[in-house]
């Protein structure tokens, strides 16, 4: 796609400076002289979907990590995900909404008497861990690759972009299968299989992170290609800034919106990838557990013990949905073109003030 020309940029900036807002667009907050961070925070906090998503995710996070404990720290829940206890009520969930009661096994038990609440919480821990590991690794690699290829261009760009092309078409499933096989061979005694057999989920996250940076790198490259032509970069270069300083101090802060939004979306996709791989048997392996593995183990038992199937799936959906809503809120918050447009207000102002301000470049073409 074509890059916006200098002319477009200048026109867009001039238009943005015009004090009269177009009909129906709420009074521009930026006029008060807030910093970009403040504007973004304000917009994000005004996005009710994102706030609900944030609250739900925080709740799941806290409950999942405190209830069954993490890394040897004991939690407040009386069972853990491996402990077998006698079946209560044939394993059916004991929690009820009315009267509100928690019971002995709120989510029920599986066939041999393991507590499903503990297993689900353990699975949620795994999914959240994988998600963050993938987000951090993919974000880091994506930024570095995208920045280097977008900023320096030339042969660095050629090599890095061909590398992304190769990685993008190698199926993730195959890579995951190879890794699972290598981790499964404990006898070979390499450092990798030793690490993978003790920290299964961490290895999976690192590995998935190593392959899911590609789309992020492409986006960041595009962003850097646009920004490196801007005047402030020229100004910085003339005043003697080093390449590293230009990349990290001048360009990256301007690309941080795209970065954060897409890392969030990568993270929500990562949860589904992890659960799908575990479902196919190449992700997290028994005796440890994960949400995908729980569903895979219990899909045959749907007719007799449906709760074994409902709760893990519900948690996958909840985590993924809340992350998606947070990502949506972030996108709205970071996108300066998005003004909260109110159709009713537009009609009112339109009818009261016949000479509404001319349309600004807010809604003009801007193809990145």
């Amino acid at each position, binding site marked *: *796609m*074509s890059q916006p020309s200098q002319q477009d940029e200048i026109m867009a900036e001039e238009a943005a400076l015009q004090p009269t807002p177009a009909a129906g667009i709420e009074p521009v907050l930026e006029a008060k002289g807030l910093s970009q961070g403040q504007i973004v925070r304000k917009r994000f906090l005004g996005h009710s979907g994102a706030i609900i998503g944030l609250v739900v995710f925080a709740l799941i996070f806290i409950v999942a990590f405190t209830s069954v404990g993490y890394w040897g720290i004991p939690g407040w829940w009386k069972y853990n995900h491996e402990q077998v206890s006698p079946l209560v009520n044939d394993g059916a969930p004991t929690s009820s909404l009315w009267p509100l009661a928690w019971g002995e096994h709120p989510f029920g038990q599986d066939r041999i008497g393991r507590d499903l609440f503990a297993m689900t919480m353990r699975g949620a821990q795994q999914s959240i861990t994988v998600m963050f590991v993938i987000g951090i690794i993919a974000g880091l690699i994506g930024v570095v690759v995208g920045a280097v290829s977008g900023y320096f261009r030339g042969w660095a760009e050629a090599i890095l972009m*061909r590398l992304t*092309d*190769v990685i993008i*078409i*190698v*199926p993730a*499933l*195959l*890579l995951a*299968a*190879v890794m699972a*096989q*290598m981790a499964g061979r404990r006898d070979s005694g390499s450092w990798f299989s030793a690490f993978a057999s003790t920290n299964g989920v961490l290895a999976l996250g690192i590995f998935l992170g190593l392959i899911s940076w590609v789309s992020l790198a492409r986006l960041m490259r595009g962003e850097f290609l646009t920004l490196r032509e801007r005047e402030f970069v020229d100004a910085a270069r003339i005043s003697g800034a080093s390449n590293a300083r230009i990349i990290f101090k001048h360009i990256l802060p301007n690309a941080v919106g795209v970065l954060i939004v897409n890392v969030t979306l990568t993270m*929500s996709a990562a949860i*589904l990838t992890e*659960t*799908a791989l575990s*479902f*196919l048997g190449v992700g997290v392996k028994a005796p440890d557990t994960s949400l*995908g593995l729980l*569903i*895979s183990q219990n*899909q045959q038992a*749907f*007719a007799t013990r449906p709760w074994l*199937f409902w709760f893990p*799936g519900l948690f*996958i*959906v909840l985590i*993924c*949905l809340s992350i*998606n*809503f947070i990502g*949506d809120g972030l996108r709205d918050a970071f996108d300066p073109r998005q003004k909260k*447009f*109110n*159709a009713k207000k537009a009609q009112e102002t339109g009818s009261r003030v016949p000479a509404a301000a001319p*349309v600004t470049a807010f*809604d*003009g*073409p801007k*193809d990145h």
Partner: protein
Amino acid sequence: MVTYIVRRLMTAALILLGASFLVYLLTAASGDPLEEYRAISAANKQQLMDARTELLQLDVPPPLRYFKWLGGAAQCLVPFANSCDLGKNIVGQPVTDALGHALIQTLTLVTGATVLAILVGITLGIITALRQYSALDYGVTFMAFLFFSLPIFWVAVLLKEFGAIGFNNFLRNPEIPMPTAIGIGIAFGALIAVAIGGELKRRVLSGGVVFLFVTAILIYFSATEWFKAPGLGPVLIAIAGVGIAFAVTLLTAGLKNRKALQSALIAVGVGVVLYFLVQPLLDQATFVMIVLLAIAAVLVGLGIGYLVGGYDRGQSMRAAAITSFLVGFMILLDRFMQAWPTYFNNSRVRGRPIATIGATTPNIEGDFWVLGLDSFTHLILPTMALILISLASYTRFTRASMLEIMNMDYIRTARAKGLSERTVVMRHAFRNALIPIATIVAFDIGGLIGGAVITESVFSVRGMGFLFLDGISHVDPNPVMGVFLCVAITAMVFNLIADLAYSALDPRVRVKA
């Protein structure tokens, strides 16, 4: 332009070489193909191991084996030579045969799902963009996010449970209790009332009409046991055809264009007459005949439009052609429904038509209609799962694209010069909103063949995904490479097509020669 395409193809070939080398080594390194023999204590153990070593050339190191494989694969590039050799799988079957079979299975599975998802997704996206910040918009947005977050294996198991087993139980005694009928009616009515927009009176009125209509139909179906012997019949086709004629005219030409409406209505009349004439012909139906009949239907519609004419002949022709195609589709549907009791009572089906696994009922026999119904009942659940998953991105994308277009200056110009809202939306906005969607669609078609691995494994369809997973689990590089080649080549070709289509559709974007 040509230089650009040639350069892209060259790069793609190089990337393909590198990636296929990587995939081959990874598959070969992922395990030990002789493992299953190592554990057994049969007398001919060594013999079996030697045989497999011989078959898969395990004595050759993987990098060299890759180049041998490449030599065979390169022969596929020679046109009409029919010497394509992608190696053999672990039981000695040539991969090209297995691949051909799997490709057909996968394509039948994903084609319908993709087309439907695109149609429904784009429609929803446009409606939500036109009704931005309405209850409908928020509802669809939430649903889109929800579907986007659903793990497909979970949805698939749920569909199996409620869609197949539940619906089959319902068919055993197809009675809809009165409260259920009213409940479904209320749901549909509420949906329409929310979707229709406009004043409160108009919403309540439309919702009420839909509620009465749906409830009445459900009660009628229940009383006549319609689900046991479904059918539309000429009367229903005529009524629905008139509705379709009005809707199609409204969208393509506007109801003010009387000539277009007339030609659409004439097309419906001709369709109802033809309904009786084609019935004996349809009894000997084949697939080719159905395609020819569809083309004939469109041609008849075009002819009607041409003869009726009017001040804008093209509009009349378009309206009549679309209407006659849809009426023809209803006649086809009716014929399928006529075959339903035969299929339902087939000894292989035994009254449980909706299947949960496989692509066909094993050993089923019957005419075109019974076999068609058989693949339909097998496809419906995986198709629904795939649609649910992929619907969300189309809806969101179309909505964003449409909103951006609706804020453009030329839309304001179109309104200012007095065009009707229909013309503005259908002619000026919709067509331009489709440009970015065209690239997304091309991308998705490219990723289609390899994109249904999990769906295939849950529904036990022996398609490309099955071949791939099976190859991985048996450490068998040749099928894996075959699937990889197909998937990668289609993905790359369609990426190229996406870029070219974008520059063809939007002249502002030029490809870098």
